[in-house]
């Protein structure tokens, strides 16, 4: 097939495409050709492809309607390779590249022969207006049933099933003035602001900057509009203070002028980013822009008229017809009927005629249209039918005729016999709606203007709207408004107002438009052929009328009832028409029905661009200790504790088989209890506290006493919030009279430092004390077990004698030749030394410990073993035994509460509230399962009477539960109502499978109750 045969709707000349090069592409498996400069939509039209999709609900054939972001129908699935699949792409915004493969997202098995169409015939009854609403009101299970069907029928596109080979990223931008939209208004605003010296960013969603000027009939300063665009762009590109971002959509406008821009960097080049110098450049980029001032120059979208059969392929927006002809050199048909309510629509007829095709008639709703373009059409000999409208399009796979009649807008009725005009294309124009989406994101309420029959954006501080976005359409006014906005925005950011004269343009004479939205038909809406309002969601005028009859009056409710505007296009074309119809039915004005609210994103954004580089192994920070590599090489399994990766357990190979976690933990536990184990405890939070009031501060923030802690000593401390609930714990050591080192839980380190600062800065600024985090400075190696003293003695100059270095003391000295602080504290109940060295030396000390430790059976253990060992001793873990509702008294830790301290420390007062004093609070106890082979489930609910009728009163739950190798039995910690007074009693734990476990309430200390082992 030759090129000319293929692109039968392509003009011989004209447009901004490069005819010297041909690009091949496929759509629904068929091969086509186009040119550089084409969008997928213009190339499809050039090839005479009418049907691009099947509609969502009724499965009706649909064609291309628009030429930009507002396109509701031509939503395609892009991608040849599985990994390159992209759903939800608007063909009107996708640049054509060689090898592009796209297919329709709706229609099964295909859009031409659609089996779902049969169902579609039933669809009206199956999914009437209010379907979603009524379904959601039904039992939730119904929705699951429907959803499957809807998805199958609707084919909302699909995600790739293979990993995306492309990369995406974010760029954090800051500027004085962000200009959104690079049409006439945006470019003149950018120029003015740039000349004023402001840092300017210009974002435009199209392949080329220039907006409507790229296809304009008008001249600026005597040159063609596109030449003016080229000149301005050249000046802007030469400015160091200007960043131009084509192919970049402003998708969200957030608080305080924070705008997200989505830049498509390689989407016009291929389905994956083409390899350059051996690597793929970033495919899409999210610019996170903090702008001093924002200029909205987003233009306006033309409104289609709502007439019967307005959804068949061949029904287009008038402006889209002009754009296809003038920018892409494509006439999307042969015989045109134009239905318009205003002068602007006439441009489509003029362009059509100039392209050498037949304009059957212009049908103007106004009785006496007058203006330059109307005159031009008359001069061209175009037939103009006044006071009339296209009331119905005939044809289903393509328009075959327009039914035209006089209409009485006031009375909303057809007022003459109908004539049928044969044609293949109907263009319609109902006027323009300013693109207010971004302004709407800020929460500002738009204002209805009767003179332009549209909403103009409400504006928060620091934002300006100009041109079409502001309801200003005459080119001269648009340019002037742009310049003014640019000057104002530059001035607001401290940049002197420059003198910029907007280019001179010829002022057009234009007649007033008439307010026409839905076109009356001979039959009432509810019984006549369908008149579509929202093409993407198949919402009809009748559907909206029905909604108002069922009592919905606010447009927000009507939208939910009908699903109008709920598609991926957010109702860019249909919302105002829908509101107008509702207003007519309710006999109100449009603004009385409500305003319409849009939310980010303006057009769909790929997840890749949202996620940027924060994916795969960069998804979240992984914090490593200085010993991480050793753990990796030792084959440790890791546990996430906050952002830290901590060794969980170290499975060994035994007889060629890798230990299970249970086996590894049992081995590690026994090694500690019988010989010596080692734990990397570097992740514990460490806060250096200095100052004469450090001790007083500790006394206020901890529940227990600190006044007598001597230099060289360590003490366990418990921290509450002022509600009396435990929030953190750890050991704090007195390094010098005015100098303490606090340790916190691993997960709580940052929060506790902030907590200390909070009290110091807001309540007790008079206390002389400073806090600094030294968590990362020290590496902490805990050796614990009966052999730990012997091991350490081999490599330190510190006197380890039990009487000169007592339990709960610290000493400084050298370990393995490295300056170290050694703390004799214990979280296992065994003789323990915590060795702290500057982290850069940690690996050497750790390895030396192993060199010496082999003969003692030194065994590395992870967090799981640590948990078992501390639970055997009844030591709590904040966040496991506690959940923000547990007081020190609930934990039975009155020994750690300084009731008589002079200052009313944080949490004290709350301990005497009626609720915290209440009998029968849940209290921490030990549980010994009656069957020692049972390991209770953590989180399992506890009841006193398993025979109680359901619902049983819950008496508490298991907080920690393990198998204890040293006891050879399961054991648990639990909170039980009034538990401390129920020692020896039996509780029951009913399980989901019907089993009921029995357990005895016992002390929380299961091993070495006198605490002798840590004191040896």
């Amino acid at each position: 097939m030759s090129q000319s045969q293929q692109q039968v709707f392509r003009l011989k000349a004209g447009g901004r495409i490069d005819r010297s090069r041909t690009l091949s592409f496929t759509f629904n498996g068929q091969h086509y050709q186009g040119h550089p400069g084409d969008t997928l939509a213009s190339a499809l039209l050039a090839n005479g492809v009418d049907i691009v999709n099947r509609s969502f609900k009724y499965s009706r054939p649909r064609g291309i309607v628009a030429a930009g972001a507002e396109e509701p129908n031509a939503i395609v699935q892009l991608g040849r390779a599985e990994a390159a699949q992209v759903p939800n792409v608007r063909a009107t915004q996708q640049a054509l590249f060689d090898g592009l493969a796209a297919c329709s997202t709706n229609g099964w098995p295909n859009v031409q022969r659609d089996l779902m169409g049969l169902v579609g015939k039933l669809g009206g009854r199956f999914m009437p207006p209010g379907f979603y609403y009524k379904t959601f009101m039904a039992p939730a299970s119904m929705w699951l049933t429907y959803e499957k069907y809807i998805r199958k029928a609707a084919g909302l596109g699909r995600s790739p099933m293979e990993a995306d080979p492309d990369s995406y990223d974010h760029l954090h931008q800051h500027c004085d003035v962000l200009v959104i939209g690079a049409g006439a208004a945006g470019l003149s605003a950018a120029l003015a602001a740039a000349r004023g010296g402001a840092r300017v960013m210009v974002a435009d969603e199209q392949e080329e900057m220039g907006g409507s000027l790229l296809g304009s009939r008008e001249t600026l300063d005597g040159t063609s509009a596109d030449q003016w665009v080229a000149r301005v762009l050249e000046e802007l590109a030469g400015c160091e203070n200007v960043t131009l971002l084509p192919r970049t959509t402003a998708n969200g406008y957030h608080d305080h002028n924070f705008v997200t821009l989505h830049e498509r960097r390689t989407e016009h080049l291929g389905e994956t980013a083409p390899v350059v110098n051996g690597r793929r450049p970033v495919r899409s980029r999210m610019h996170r822009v903090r702008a001093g001032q924002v200029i909205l120059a987003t233009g306006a979208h033309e409104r289609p008229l709502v007439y019967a059969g307005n959804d068949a392929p061949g029904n287009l927006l008038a402006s889209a017809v002009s754009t296809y002809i003038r920018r892409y050199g494509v006439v999307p048909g042969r015989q045109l009927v134009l239905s318009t309510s205003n002068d602007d629509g006439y441009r489509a007829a003029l362009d059509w005629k100039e392209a050498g095709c037949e304009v059957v008639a212009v049908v103007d709703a106004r009785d006496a249209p007058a203006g330059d373009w109307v005159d031009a059409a008359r001069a061209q000999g175009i037939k103009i039918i006044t006071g009339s409208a296209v009331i119905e399009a005939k044809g289903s796979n393509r328009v075959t005729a327009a039914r035209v009649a006089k209409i009485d807008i006031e009375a909303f009725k057809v007022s003459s016999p109908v004539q049928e005009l044969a044609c293949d294309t109907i263009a319609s124009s109902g006027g323009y709606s300013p693109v207010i989406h971004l302004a709407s994101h800020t929460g500002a309420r738009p204002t209805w203007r009767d003179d332009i029959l549209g909403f103009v954006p409400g504006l928060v501080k620091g934002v300006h709207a100009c041109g079409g976005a502001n309801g200003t359409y005459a080119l001269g006014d648009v340019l002037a408004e742009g310049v003014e906005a640019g000057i104002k925005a530059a001035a607001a950011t401290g940049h002197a107002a420059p003198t910029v004269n907007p280019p001179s343009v010829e002022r057009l004479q234009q007649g007033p438009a008439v307010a026409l939205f839905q076109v009356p038909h001979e039959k009432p809406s509810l019984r006549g052929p369908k008149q579509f309002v929202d093409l993407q969601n198949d919402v009809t005028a009748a559907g909206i009328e029905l909604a108002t009859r069922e009592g919905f009056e606010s447009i927000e409710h009507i939208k939910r009832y009908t699903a109008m505007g709920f598609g991926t296009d957010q109702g860019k074309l249909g919302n105002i028409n829908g509101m107008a119809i509702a207003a007519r039915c309710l006999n109100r004005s449009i603004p009385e029905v409500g305003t319409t609210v849009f939310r980010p994103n303006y057009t769909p954004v790929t997840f890749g661009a949202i996620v940027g580089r924060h994916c795969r192994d960069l998804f979240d920070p992984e914090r490593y200790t200085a010993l991480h590599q050793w753990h990796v090489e030792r084959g440790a399994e890791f546990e996430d504790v906050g952002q830290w990766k901590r060794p969980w357990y170290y499975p060994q190979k035994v007889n060629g088989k890798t230990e299970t976690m249970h086996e590894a933990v049992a081995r590690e536990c026994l090694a500690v209890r019988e010989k010596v184990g080692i734990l990397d405890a570097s992740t514990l939070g460490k806060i250096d506290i200095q100052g004469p009031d450090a001790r007083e501060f500790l006394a206020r923030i901890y529940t227990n006493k600190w006044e007598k802690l001597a230099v060289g000593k360590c003490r366990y401390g418990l921290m509450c919030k002022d509600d009396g609930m435990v929030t953190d714990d750890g050991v704090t050591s007195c390094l010098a009279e005015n100098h303490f080192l606090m340790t916190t839980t691993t997960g709580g380190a940052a929060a506790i430092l902030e907590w200390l600062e909070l009290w110091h800065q807001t309540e007790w600024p008079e206390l002389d004390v400073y806090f600094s985090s030294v968590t990362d400075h020290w590496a902490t190696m805990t050796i614990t077990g009966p052999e730990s003293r012997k091991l350490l003695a081999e490599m330190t100059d510190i006197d380890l004698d039990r009487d000169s270095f007592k339990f709960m003391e610290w000493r400084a000295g050298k370990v393995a030749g490295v300056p170290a602080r050694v703390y004799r504290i214990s979280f296992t109940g065994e003789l323990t030394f915590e060795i702290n060295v500057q982290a850069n030396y940690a690996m050497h000390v750790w390895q030396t410990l192993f060199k010496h430790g082999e003969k003692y059976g030194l065994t590395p253990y992870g967090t799981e073993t640590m948990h078992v060992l501390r639970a055997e001793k009844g030591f709590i873990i904040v966040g496991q035994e506690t959940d923000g509702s547990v007081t020190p008294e609930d934990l039975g830790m009155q020994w750690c509460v300084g009731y008589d301290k002079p200052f009313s420390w944080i949490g004290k007062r709350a301990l005497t509230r009626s609720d915290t004093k209440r009998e029968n609070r849940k209290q921490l106890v030990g549980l010994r399962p009656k069957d020692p082979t049972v390991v209770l489930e953590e989180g399992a609910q506890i009841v006193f009477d398993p025979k109680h009728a359901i619902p049983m009163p819950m008496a508490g739950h298991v907080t920690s539960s393990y198998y204890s190798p040293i006891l050879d039995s399961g054991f648990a910690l639990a909170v039980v109502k009034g538990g401390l007074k129920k020692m020896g009693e039996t509780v029951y734990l009913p399980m989901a499978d019907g089993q009921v476990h029995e357990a005895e309430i016992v002390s929380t200390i299961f091993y070495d109750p006198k605490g002798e082992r840590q004191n040896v």
Partner: protein
Amino acid sequence: MSNAVTFDTRTDTAIPVESPLAFSYRQSGAPRAGSSSRVQLRERAMLGHLILRGGAIVLDEAVRDVLGISLPGKPQALVQDTSGERSIQWLSPDEWLVIVPGGEEFPLETQLRERLGNSHYAISDVSGGQTALEITGEAARELLMKAVIYDVHPSNFPVGKGVTTVFAKATTILRRPSEERWELVVRRSFADYCYRWLLDAAAEYSVNVEQ
């Protein structure tokens, strides 16, 4: 003396040390790109890092006496000695970061404490807890824009400025000691994440890592 204890965590004996990035080099490598490189990374490892807390007036005199440079009183200010090897950065109205050649931090702390006497202040040695990553090259600023939410445009970030801000999903200190050089001061435990992040983001600039 302020009755705090000091502790020299370093030793002169030939004990092997590992900088925060030692693991990362082994795990992720250190790409060499040669002359085509538009971004260069270099760890300034094993430096002395001290956190100074206290009143600006009290500290300024002591710092001037001992270090020969004045304490930056203005927010976000970074001052260096003439060699550029010793610097003090404003972190908050009562907090500064001092970076000196490795090994100098303990004598410096000792001297400062002697000089400061009984005034209320605090000095914490954090040399093992953080490391400095130097970024140079024509694409350095764009690379930083990918990761750092703070505005790194020269009009907002001149030489002699430093801020604590968000880097990817971590916290870092970012400073600009000279026209061509940027410096990230990252916490040890986040160093590998930041390094991997930088390698990934800088791949398109043919990043070169100097070890």
